[in-house]
């Protein structure tokens, strides 16, 4: 260890013999070489003490250093990420990016529902300088009374919504107001949902609530597809909130909602809606529903009821009307159910279309007596005649041959008593009791469509099965889903299930054709040039006042398909007429004919030209 002081001056060898400064405590002769200089300096007692003090000092300094370094490590290494994050967050500004809700279109791409960008005008009353002047400036632009605006702007709050769904060109004008007038106004994304078709298809499409969630129809069931995922713009900003170019940009883009294509045809939907509105305005009809299905795919081509509603004005509509009666309201179908009874009888081998039965005018069923529409002497009806003349007694006779349990099995196989699974909310399964619980009168009522409740859609599905050669395809209304990136996904299609054999279905088609036209109950159901198949129904409507059938009026129905030799469309119509006793063939059949005519003509269906067969209805 070198001495701390300056090096000793060089001295010639001779000078050592007479040392001028004999600092050493014990001089050991002149000849001895000098002692190591370091050793000499350790000699004073004060130095040793200082050495120890320095050691403590050093230890203290080291401890301080360790503390400081340790703290640094904690700050930088352990908590570093959190502090860095806090610092970054301090510089970041966040703005929400609203995902654009997807479109709903019909099968041809006609838009039924879509969203356009709009803004919500919000104010911070604490910042607004002069509420009255701001209110006056905004009243014409926002179309809100000035008094209401003044009241809102004077509130003791930091957030008031002045107007919702304001179109962007209006907010552009608001932004151009003088600075002192528009201070405190903020604009937020608030896309508005438009339904250009209005009430046409409104019940199927549904509507969205003020918070942007689907509350009815397709808007509700396809919410996941339509809604999309909101994004967030997250950028580094400077003091005054301006975005720093080339700064941190952790923006999450919004994923727009996908669009949903329906199987509806807007034109057919329009015609159906028009026709039903006409029917509803005849004075006796309180409500009416109609549905048109594609025979081969079970796709819903049109589905409407009256009174309908415009989804764009759902706020002003009676909440009781904001449903879709086609799928949610049940009624007793009446004679249209006889097709199922006869299909069961034929499929079970109890009869063929030409089997002859001697039918009385009435039949005892437990404690009740069921009569035909008009009591008559015994007639030798063919089975075709029973259907064409809609004989209750004949149908009950056939049903008894089949048996209650078997009949119930067929009813359920045709989809009655269970939901069709269509992509619409609030679907009803209808009411079908277990055959074991049927009373004798109930067992006589079910085959003729009383004591059983169905939806219009279920009834259409029954006839779709017969039209499709006995294969039932559950109805669907969503055709495909197109994601925001353009990927098209076809909606899943349920497998068709065979309910009756093709031969049975053909016999039913033959028999049902006898209903429409000469000799049948529904000559008005004819479509000129086409062979139409269908069945009328007139069911007693339960009187809500007494829970009985007396004075309840009727549900008149007509369900059918065309053309008979190559069915394309099934149309089911039902009208609720509490005050009228008119039969289905008189009021429902014309609606059916008009809808079917348009569907066939617009659908490009050409009649084959085969003649309508001659039917033997009764054997004399």
């Amino acid at each position, binding site marked *: 260890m070198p001495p701390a002081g300056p*090096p000793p001056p060089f001295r010639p060898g001779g000078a050592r013999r007479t040392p001028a400064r004999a600092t050493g405590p014990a001089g050991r002769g002149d000849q001895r070489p000098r002692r190591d200089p370091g050793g000499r300096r350790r000699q004073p007692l004060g130095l040793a003490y200082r050495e120890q003090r320095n050691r403590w000092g050093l230890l203290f300094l080291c401890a301080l250093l360790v503390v400081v370094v340790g703290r640094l490590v904690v700050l930088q290494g352990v908590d570093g990420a959190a502090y860095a994050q806090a610092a970054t967050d301090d510089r970041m500004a966040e703005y929400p990016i609203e995902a654009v809700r997807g479109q709903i279109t019909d099968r041809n791409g*006609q838009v039924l529902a879509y969203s*356009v*960008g709009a803004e919500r005008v919000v104010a911070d009353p604490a910042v607004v300088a002069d509420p009255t002047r701001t209110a006056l400036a905004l009243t014409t632009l926002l179309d809100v009374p000035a008094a209401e605006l003044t009241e809102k702007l004077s509130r003791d709050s930091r957030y008031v919504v002045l107007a919702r769904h304001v179109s962007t060109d209006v907010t552009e004008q608001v932004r151009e107001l003088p600075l002192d007038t528009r201070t405190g106004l903020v604009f937020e994304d608030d896309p508005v949902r438009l339904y*250009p078709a209005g009430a046409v298809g409104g019940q199927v499409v549904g509507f969205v609530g003020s918070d942007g969630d689907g509350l009815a129809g397709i808007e509700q069931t396809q919410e996941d597809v339509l809604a999309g995922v909101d994004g967030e713009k997250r950028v580094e900003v400077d003091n005054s909130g301006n975005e720093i170019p080339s700064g941190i940009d952790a923006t999450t883009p919004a994923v727009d909602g996908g669009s949903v294509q329906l199987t509806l045809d*807007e034109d057919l939907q329009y015609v159906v809606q028009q026709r039903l509105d006409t029917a509803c305005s005849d004075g006796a009809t309180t409500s009416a529903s109609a549905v048109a299905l594609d025979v081969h795919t079970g796709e819903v081509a049109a589905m409407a009821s009256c009174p309908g509603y415009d989804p764009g004005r759902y706020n002003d509509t009676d909440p009781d009307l904001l449903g879709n009666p086609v799928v949610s309201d049940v009624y007793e179908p009446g004679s249209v159910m006889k097709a199922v009874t006869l299909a069961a009888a034929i499929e079970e081998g109890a009869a063929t279309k030409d089997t002859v039965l001697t039918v009385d005018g009435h039949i005892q069923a437990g404690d009740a007596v069921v009569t035909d529409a008009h009591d008559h002497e015994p007639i030798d009806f063919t089975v075709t005649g029973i259907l064409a003349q809609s004989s209750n007694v004949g149908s009950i006779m056939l049903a008894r041959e089949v048996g209650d349990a078997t009949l119930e099995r067929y009813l359920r196989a045709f989809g009655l008593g269970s939901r069709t699974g269509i992509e619409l909310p609030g679907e009803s399964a209808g009411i079908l009791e277990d055959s074991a619980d049927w009373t004798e009168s109930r067992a006589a009522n079910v085959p003729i469509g009383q004591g059983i409740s169905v939806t219009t859609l279920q009834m259409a599905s029954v006839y779709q099965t017969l039209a499709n050669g006995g294969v039932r395809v559950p109805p669907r209304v969503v055709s495909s889903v197109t994601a925001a990136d353009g990927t098209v996904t076809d909606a899943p299609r349920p497998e068709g299930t065979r309910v009756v054999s093709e031969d049975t279905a053909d016999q039913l088609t033959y028999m049902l054709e006898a209903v429409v036209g000469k000799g049948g109950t529904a000559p008005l159901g004819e479509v000129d040039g086409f062979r139409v198949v269908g069945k009328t129904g007139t069911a007693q409507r339960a009187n809500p006042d007494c829970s009985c059938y007396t004075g309840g009026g009727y549900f008149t129905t007509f369900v059918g398909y065309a053309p008979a030799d190559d069915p394309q469309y099934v149309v089911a119509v039902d009208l609720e007429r509490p005050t009228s006793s008119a039969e289905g063939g008189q009021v429902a059949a014309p609606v059916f004919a008009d809808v079917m005519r348009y569907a066939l*003509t617009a659908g490009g269906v050409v*009649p084959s030209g085969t003649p309508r067969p001659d039917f033997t209805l009764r054997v004399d």
Partner: protein
Amino acid sequence: MSQPARATSARTTARTATTRTATARTATTRTATTRTGSTRATPRTATARTATARTAPRPGTGPVHVPRTGSTRRTGPVATGPQLRLVPPARTTPTRTPARAGATARRRAPFVVLLVAMLVATTVGLLLLNTAIAVDSLEANQQRAAIAEQAEEVARLEQQVVAADTAAQLARVAAEAGLVPAGAAGHLVLQPDGSSVLLGTAEPAPEPVPAPSADPTTPGD
């Protein structure tokens, strides 16, 4: 600095003398080995010195310098003192420093200028780049605003198209233009044998309801 001096004093002064003196060293080398007579670097190595000791008694190889190596004379330190003292002052001559510094400064000048130039260039470049970025960002913002405006315009126009394209609107406009819905269609169906059958009765369309917009010269808007 004092270390070598001490070491020499502890040992024999005569040896120090021989190593430091050029003449003595040369003589020893020649005595030791005949082949390395011309080199001056080798004598400093340990082998050379060891060789000297071994070959010393060998006759006829060297002159009379050998006994002198072995002798220990006390007059040695006197000779070494001045020689050691002479060297350091020569190196630390104060008169040489300013001249040298001047030369260095002259040599460093371009380097400093280069550094300053680079600094300035960097600063100016950074400034220009930042300005360019700011300008681009401003432009990008303007373009973005323009795009948003165009998109809004497109959305507005699309809205009009969609509104005018609905079935209800088309039906209304058609009615205003004096059109009527087609009635039942008649179908002329060719049979396999070549004959044709007329199915359905084609009804002529009903007369449109007379309305001011039914006038073909002023179609409805």
